[in-house]
């Protein structure tokens, strides 16, 4: 096939020029990679998790490498809403790609306030809601582990914004399908999954946890099979589009998610290992489409074949 494959995908109301997006917390505000990756070539960028007030984050050590992965306990460090609007937004408004704000709160009202603050703001294409963080009103249990609370957060954000709402699910749950369904019914336009898997590592010499926070979130290739399975489960449960995240290092990994049923993918830890990973993945997807006579990448979505 000689013509360029059509890489465009739709995430409900949100149109992307291609399915490759950077994952929250792994690409900063895009600026950090400015000499390496032109964000305008990507389907979109998801910004570092944003909270109402600035947050310094957890004490170090915050990261530790594990087999084919890493644990992080950054503690959602970020500059807070006001500084974001002043320091980062103007530059982001000049980008020609989907800029997706990732928000988190410590109470349902905080989620609502953040969504309201970003309502109508030019240059923000959609909102991704991180529900994996601790809910202080409920003794620190993550919002995303309870279907009712997940739905409540989603509903609050949906009511407070005019933008497409993507809810990012936590894998640290008994049955992802129940949460996915609850969030869909509450009005989410799309789902992202998965966030990091809670894990822990111990230094056998000192017998102390390797992270100051004791536990951290596992990311990288180690979690990919779990992510693929959860995406597979979710797409069978909901009608809204799903974005696959977890351990994507190259275009083959990205294709695995698309075939499982994801409409787009997010690349996280791979940005650390190979800062150009997103661009390489994009190139690999084009080549795969060409080599396999796929005119539109959307043809691949959910093309999984399971013998009867």
């Amino acid at each position: 096939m000689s013509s360029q494959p059509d890489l465009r995908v739709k995430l409900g109301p949100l149109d992307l020029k291609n399915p490759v997006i950077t994952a929250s917390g792994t690409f900063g505000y895009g600026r950090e990679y400015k000499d390496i990756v032109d964000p305008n070539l990507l389907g979109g960028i998801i910004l570092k998790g944003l909270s109402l007030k600035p947050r310094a984050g957890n004490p170090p050590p915050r990261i530790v490498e594990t087999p084919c992965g890493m644990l992080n306990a950054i503690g959602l460090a970020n500059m807070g809403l006001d500084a974001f609007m002043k320091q980062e937004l103007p530059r982001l408004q000049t980008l020609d790609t989907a800029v997706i704000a990732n928000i988190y709160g410590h109470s349902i009202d905080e989620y609502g306030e953040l969504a309201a603050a970003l309502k109508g703001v030019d240059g923000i294409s959609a909102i991704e809601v991180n529900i994996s963080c601790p809910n202080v009103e409920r003794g620190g249990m993550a919002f995303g582990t309870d279907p009712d609370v997940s739905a409540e957060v989603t509903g609050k954000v949906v009511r407070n914004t005019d933008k497409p709402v993507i809810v990012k699910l936590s894998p640290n749950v008994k049955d992802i399908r129940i949460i996915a369904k609850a969030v869909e019914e509450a009005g989410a336009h799309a789902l992202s999954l998965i966030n990091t898997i809670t894990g822990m590592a111990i230094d056998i010499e000192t017998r102390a946890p390797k992270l100051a926070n004791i536990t951290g979130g596992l990311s990288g290739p180690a979690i990919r099979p779990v992510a693929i399975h959860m995406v597979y489960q979710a797409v069978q449960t909901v009608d809204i589009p799903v974005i696959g995240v977890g351990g994507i290092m190259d275009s083959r990994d990205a294709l695995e998610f698309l075939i499982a049923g994801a409409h787009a993918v997010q690349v996280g830890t791979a940005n650390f290992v190979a800062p150009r990973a997103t661009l390489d993945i994009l190139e690999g997807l084009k080549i795969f489409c060409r080599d396999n006579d796929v005119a539109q990448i959307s043809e691949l979505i959910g093309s999984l074949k399971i013998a009867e």
Partner: protein
Amino acid sequence: MGLRSPEIVADAKPGQFVMIRVGSGIEPLLRRPFSICGRQGNDVFLVLYRVVGKGTAIMAETEKGGRLSVLGPLGNGFELPKPGQTVVLVAGGIGVAPLFSLAQAVKEKDIQFMAGFGSSDEIIRMDPINDLNGINISFSTDDGTKGHAGLVTDLLDEYLKKNRDRSDSMSLFICGPLPMLKRVAAMALDHNISCHASLESAMACGLGACQGCAVRSSSQEKTEFYHVCKDGPVFPIGTIDWNSL
């Protein structure tokens, strides 16, 4: 090892570092940070490393003429000392690496280089390749097999005592294991000497994006944490909360 990259050599400042991808697979996953310790000509920079784990073990197997993926130069690097200053370099073990690059850059200045090692066979010399011939390095070894028997901080202590009246015109640059850095930092604060330390921290991105490399600042009003990869690796000692390390 010497790595050929005219781009990195052209951009690099003393004290900056690179992130090296060891191997090409997903294990080990993350890049490893290494100081640029000097340059040869216009296209080769040097990295000095100690084999401490699986990543550095793989690096040691890299064959001559092989290719490695290197990200850099990264970080702030040393602020070069003002003219007329005596440059005092204090290194522990592999901590000599960034200080060699600084020494190479300021070699016409008055330099006092003190380096401590465990034993004489661990001493790392850079004179032949790094063109540091004129520079006088005094050594200390824990076992006394070379130079002063004891700590490199003893050498510094002695030097500072001898040159008490000149502390205004001294610039200290230090890199090494934490206990050494803490002692030297305390001495420098005591004598009110300008002092910069090159710090280490676990890193993932090296670009200021992941916030994994946080180190606690001494001034909560300014910021609670600095990031070693972006704000550092070189810090004026007064800006760091040494008790947190």
